């Protein structure tokens, strides 16, 4: 929802190593069912998506702020790796 320039400054401030994408037109939050039409703001959420594009985990609201759920969901991918 923030503009790309705002995201760039935010990314510099917090030193992220992943892409910060701008959903300025609020299309993606709408597609994901997170846009509150009354306030114009979106809800906080984290989705874990596998290599095939399938949703493997969803965290919403307060639980999405804590990365533990998404982190645990990602650890499932490691277990699926074939043994060397």
């Amino acid at each position, binding site marked *: *929802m923030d503009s790309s320039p705002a995201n760039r400054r935010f990314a510099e401030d917090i030193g992220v190593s992943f892409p910060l994408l701008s959903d300025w037109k609020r299309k993606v939050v709408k597609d994901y069912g997170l846009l509150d039409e009354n306030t114009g703001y979106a809800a906080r959420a984290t989705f874990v998506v596998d290599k095939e594009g399938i*949703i493997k985990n969803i965290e919403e609201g307060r639980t999405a702020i804590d990365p533990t759920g998404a982190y645990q969901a990602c650890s499932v991918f490691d277990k699926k790796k074939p043994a060397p």
Partner: protein
Amino acid sequence: MARRIIHLTMLLLTLALLVHAQETKPQQPAQGANPPAPPKTHLKVGQTAPDFTLTDTTGKAVKLSDFKGQKNVVLAFYVLAFTGG
């Protein structure tokens, strides 16, 4: 007679004040009323994540489906930059 008129007047005045008080009583929110809940996604685990193309901080377009067959992706919807989320 005058006394009865005074009593009646006082009674009417009291009634009028009671009615007025009833009418002007401020509307208070119902006890225990909660603010509207934030929207919840209609998407479910096991469904295909809706595809999108958005620009990153360098202006480069990033498409979710470009990661298909390449990488697992974590999509963190972070509502407002410079806040605690």
